[in-house]
């Protein structure tokens, strides 16, 4: 595996630009593919035209201009399908995948354990419990309206992880083993609470279960808009921590010797990862496997240094999620598979092949 080169910039500098550019290109192709396929057959020309009209309409609206010339009824239906249903769903899938993969990369780095995933510290259970409670209470919380469940899930995930951190901390340090233990224990506790809510509220059980299994069925540009800034902030935090995460792989003591503020790093990465996870869970429910497998696969394919791992994991997480959702919504249309089922079904064999090839090499 020769991924290094000698250059004026120094020895053993792994390229970032080219794999990132190629991966982003691949993501773009996947997005175009996913935008072109759906239960309603729409030709590439119409998809493109509808997208252009959608962007034009948004730009006009942003500048307070009147909508352009109205289109006929048939075109309006296509515009609605492409611009208001399919594209937001594809973009939301990409964001959710990127967020989960970012969180997974961060957690695996900070816990120095390839089995860490975004839900390790109880984010999923916290979000699930809060979402279930709100759904039982009628699904809306005052002004939040349609965003009530999302908002509750976000708050539930964040509060759970903060509680776990508070329980596990010793003064200003954050020892890893108590942290993971507290996460597992509080997570189980909240999962039991969710099970109880499910049993007690049979009428809403199907809705809650669908949410818990993860779904992108009700995507919208509003949801994309609410997720994007959170993911960007988390990504910026993770990228800022990338070099320190590399050093942390030497061990906490060695990292401290090299000037890394280990406790601040751990807390920062846990917070950034939690932000990304909570954001993803709030709009798409609990989608497993992406946060575990994608960073790991990227590490096997591109090497362990986080300055490459973090951005590449985000891009590959996005692409993987878009593909998984494409499968979920088309393979048994008009019915839908839970996207979490697809991520596990597709992710597991892919991961095993990667692992075997790696151990054979």
């Amino acid at each position, binding site marked *: 595996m020769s991924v290094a080169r000698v250059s004026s910039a*120094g020895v053993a500098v792994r390229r970032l630009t080219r794999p990132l550019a190629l991966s982003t290109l691949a993501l773009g192709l996947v997005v175009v593919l996913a935008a072109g396929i759906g239960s309603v057959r729409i030709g590439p020309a119409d998809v493109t035209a509808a997208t252009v009209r959608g962007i034009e309409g948004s730009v006009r609206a942003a500048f307070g201009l009147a909508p352009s010339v109205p289109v006929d009824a048939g075109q309006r239906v296509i515009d609605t399908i492409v611009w208001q249903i399919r594209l937001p769903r594809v973009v939301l899938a990409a964001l959710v995948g990127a967020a989960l993969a970012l969180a997974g990369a961060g957690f695996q780095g900070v816990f120095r354990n390839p089995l860490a995933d975004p839900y390790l510290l109880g984010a999923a259970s916290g979000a699930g419990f809060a979402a279930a409670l709100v759904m039982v209470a009628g699904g809306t919380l005052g002004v939040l309206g349609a965003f009530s469940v999302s908002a509750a899930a976000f708050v539930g995930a964040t509060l759970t992880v903060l509680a776990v951190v508070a329980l596990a901390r010793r003064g200003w340090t954050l020892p890893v083993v108590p942290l993971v233990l507290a996460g597992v224990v509080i997570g189980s506790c909240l999962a039991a609470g969710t099970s109880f809510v499910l049993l007690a509220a049979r009428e809403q059980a199907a809705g809650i279960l669908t949410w818990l299994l993860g779904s992108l069925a009700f995507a919208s540009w509003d949801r994309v808009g609410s997720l994007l800034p959170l993911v960007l902030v988390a990504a910026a935090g993770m990228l*800022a921590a990338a070099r320190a995460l590399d050093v942390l792989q030497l061990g906490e*003591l060695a990292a401290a*010797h090299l000037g890394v503020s280990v406790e601040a790093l751990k807390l920062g990465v846990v917070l950034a990862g939690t932000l990304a996870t909570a954001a993803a869970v709030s709009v798409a429910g609990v989608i497993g496997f992406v946060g575990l497998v994608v960073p790991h696969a990227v590490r096997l394919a591109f090497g362990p240094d986080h300055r490459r791992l973090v951005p590449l994991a985000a891009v590959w997480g996005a692409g993987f999620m878009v593909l998984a959702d494409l499968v979920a919504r088309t393979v048994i249309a008009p019915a839908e598979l839970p996207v979490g089922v697809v991520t596990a079904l597709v992710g597991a064999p892919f991961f095993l092949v990667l692992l075997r090839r790696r151990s054979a090499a």
Partner: protein
Amino acid sequence: MTDVVAPSVAAGRGATDALMASAAPDVLRLEGVHAGYGARPVLHGVDLEVRAGEVLGIIGPNGAGKSTLVHVISKVLAVQSGSVWVDGAPLASLGRRALARRLAVMPQAATLPDGFLVGEVVRMGRTPFVRAWRGPSAEDEAEVERAMRQTGVWGLAERPVEHLSGGERQRVVLARALAQRPRVLVLDEPTSHLDLRYQAELLRAARQAAADGVGVLLVIHDLNLAARACDRMLLLTDGRVVAAGTVRQVLVRSRLERAYRTEVDVFDSPRGPTVVPRV
């Protein structure tokens, strides 16, 4: 209590180097340091100084407080009382980054994470100098290359660390510490698990660092290697300095028998004393 003996002209190479070094400024100084873990005190008033250009050996039986001393110096463990100065600055006033620019530690049993390349690991030594959102500067790269050449790992730059031998790994870790371009270099048991050739190589690299003006603090179990590598020595027992001075002043049979609680023979030779326990 502290048995500090003035350097003697009778000693060999170590003593003369130490005499020359005594003119140099101290880069590490501890005065009356008490430290420990929670309610358990380990160090009871330790004084020491390391001058630029010298190798100070820290020896002592297991549990004497050698690792605690390293933790105090590297600011992983706070002092309970007493003071520490690194390169003239009080340790308490130095942040982690600022400390790492002055003092490097080669930890005992360092781990090297799989998948990283030798060059990447050594470059991590520049962490305290690299600014956020910026790549390493040309100066950083020059320091990395210098440290790798000095430790003989330049040719291994592109090799994944999991493919290194034990001796190569230790030299990579030393290169990482040297890449910090420290004023003080703390080596914590750097030769354990190494064969004779690698022991010699590593200690030669440490002496070279001292010759370049670094103050080296060498924590080491092997008294005979210590005798060959150090300019001065400090014998630590139960958290106290029980002897300090030249190699010949410290490696004295009666002192060693008291400190290690076992009978030893000390044989002198032109290259320094040799200590062998009676079995």
